[in-house]
């Protein structure tokens, strides 16, 4: 029983963090100027070479052979720098392809030739003959996407992203993430990973939680750094309980969300009975903490928090975006009440 990273895991964390610090630092948002971020092919290929997309896929299936635990730690680092959600969709997509024996798609994914975008059903989608999908979807990060990832209680589906050219481009709450509305009319499914032994649903929840946890930590750190540096009434504002105590609450939220993330990652990885419960709990706790912390961080930053010159606004917008991926709060409620908690 040990919930802290071991040496190998810590190395993954450190390497990821140092790569992100140089390639995807938070500061990059100042250059985006409120436009959706699209990763260059170069960086995408580099990431593929680093093995992110196959990190948790067994070696026999072309992956790196680590587990969901290591994936969660990696994705948490992505969350800290608000990396594009498409990276996680692609990671899940690669798994889908690998476990469905869609070997070509898998290999292309691992080689960095595939970009998978999250597709969020606007209402219940319908399945036609051969499992073809029809319905209206919000697609996130559509720029450069080759495939769409559709998640529901039954499992995960990969669909080719043709026709995306005709998508209606929308403005996303989070300007740094692209958004389009796509109408699918009998789109055929390239891979369908049923939500069974592999529990793709729990994995998806979990990895979005990992993004959220990283973001919660970044938000806390942003608030704390500002509270130490900003002086008012002759003192750093962090001495005032009206600032210190919200920071403390953020710290508690991070501790709870991170602990639950790690626990859930291990339970799902080990295939224990309460995997879906634990992953759903992780998502709920992380999403609530992320939104609340982000809102408080704006308030702590005062007027500056309201501008785009500081990072505070980014966390607010991204928190709401991640909140809707892989299970909205209301869907999570249903799962949490239906599943039996561990005793």
């Amino acid at each position, binding site marked *: 029983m040990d919930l802290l990273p071991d040496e190998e895991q810590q190395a993954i964390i450190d390497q990821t963090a140092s790569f992100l610090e140089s390639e995807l630092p938070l500061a990059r948002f100042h250059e985006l100027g409120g436009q959706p971020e699209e990763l260059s092919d170069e960086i995408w290929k580099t990431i593929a070479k680093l093995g992110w997309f196959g990190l948790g896929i067994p070696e026999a299936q072309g992956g790196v052979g680590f587990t969901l635990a290591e994936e969660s730690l990696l994705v948490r680092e992505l969350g800290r720098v608000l990396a594009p959600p498409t990276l996680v969709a692609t990671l899940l997509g690669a798994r889908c392809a690998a476990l469905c024996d869609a070997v070509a798609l898998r290999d292309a994914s691992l080689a960095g030739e595939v970009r998978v975008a999250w597709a969020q059903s606007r209402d219940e989608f319908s399945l036609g003959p051969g499992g073809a999908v029809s319905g209206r979807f919000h697609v996130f990060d559509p720029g450069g996407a080759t495939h769409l990832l559709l998640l529901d209680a039954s499992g995960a589906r990969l669909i080719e992203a043709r026709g995306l050219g005709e998508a209606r481009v929308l*403005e996303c709450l989070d300007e740094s993430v692209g958004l389009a509305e796509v109408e699918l009319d009998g789109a055929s499914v390239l891979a369908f990973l049923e939500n069974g032994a592999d529990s793709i649903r729990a994995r998806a929840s979990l990895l979005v939680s990992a993004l959220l946890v990283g973001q919660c930590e970044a938000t806390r750190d942003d608030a704390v750094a500002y509270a130490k540096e900003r002086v*008012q009434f002759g003192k750093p504002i962090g001495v005032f309980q009206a600032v210190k105590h919200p920071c403390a609450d953020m710290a508690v939220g991070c501790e709870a969300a991170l602990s639950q993330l790690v626990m859930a990652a291990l339970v799902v990885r080990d295939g224990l009975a309460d995997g879906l419960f634990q992953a759903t709990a992780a998502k709920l706790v992380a999403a609530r903490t992320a939104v609340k912390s982000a809102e408080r961080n704006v308030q702590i930053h*005062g007027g500056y928090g309201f501008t785009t010159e500081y990072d505070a606004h980014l966390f607010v917008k991204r928190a709401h975006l991640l909140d809707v991926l892989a299970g909205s709060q209301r869907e999570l409620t249903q799962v949490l009440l239906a599943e039996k908690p561990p005793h």
Partner: protein
Amino acid sequence: MDLDYSQEDQQFRKRVHDWLAENVPDEALPNDSQGARDYEVAWQRTLYENGWAGISWPTEYGGCGLSLVEQIIWHEEYARAGAPGVGCNFVGLNHGGPTLIACASEEQKAFHLPRILRGESVWCQGFSEPDAGSDLANLKCRAEVMGDHLLVTGQKIWTSYGNVADYQELLVRTDPDAAKHGGITWLICDMRSPGIEIRSIPTMVGESDFCEVFYENVRIPIENVVGEINDGWRVAMSTLGFERGTAFIAQQMRLSEVVEALAELARDTPGADGRPAIEDSEIAGKLATLRAEVAALRSMTYVSISRAMRSPVPGPEGSMTKLFFSELGQRAYQLSLEVLGTGKVERAPLSGHWGGGTDWLRGYLGSFAATIGGGTSEIMRNIIGDRVLGLPRDRR
């Protein structure tokens, strides 16, 4: 205690109602800053020409000199008629002008007050600085008195409409050795003076009405000092609480409309189970609470005005209304995201300046300003604790 209006007041209400019904413009507010300014000053001109400029200003300075009750009536009818927001005329009409009335020389009044009323000059505020936000008296923008003029060097921030203003009420430090609240002077600054540079600060909502203003050796004539040199803190405080008067009614009525629009949204948006979101008990409960709280907010304002009718000096109670109003607005917009559910990620197409309508995402993002601007909620709670409740202050 009564809710009665005299016969004269009722007639006044009818007159206001009828005039507004005929004169409120149909055109929407333009989306760009200059266009919005043109629109707003034209409307101010119309008000002026019809005798409705400066409704709370004394008649001797060209205002309407309305009684508090008449002001309530004006603002109620104004909000019901959907008349244009005060926009870039806010500082001139509700802060700069009243300060001049309270503290300026007759020459200063004679020059500036009519221009404000006629919509000929737009004012902005130059109080906050990067290091003087909640701690306003910590301001550092320096002015040296050089015989017939002052030389100003420094920076101001959070200057709404700084990009379209003609004049600025500017607080500068004229004596760096004086105690914190001493050594400050209140100046009328011509925004076209050489040495002024204005930079828009983009907000999280995507607007750019907030500005930073940089001053480098800006010459301001000594006649532009209001009150005495080094007495600017008193001048600035002379209109404290003014913003929290009857003008607040319009904002509240707008919030009330927001909550009703939210109820509409909840009726029109399907919830998780396909039924309208308003049938979800959590959303229903929060909506009902918001409705009750908006009613209470309005009642608080009427109580404030009742107090004001007995004592002309505004007390610290205004801080309670400000705090309640701003947090209530945030809760309303937070609920709108809950109602939208997964749809909350999609912004409505941009249409016109954001006015707190049904563009929920911009409304939500914009609502963060409410608990920060005009004194953060933390500062409001300090004021309420210290001045309303008489709790001991920390030695600072």
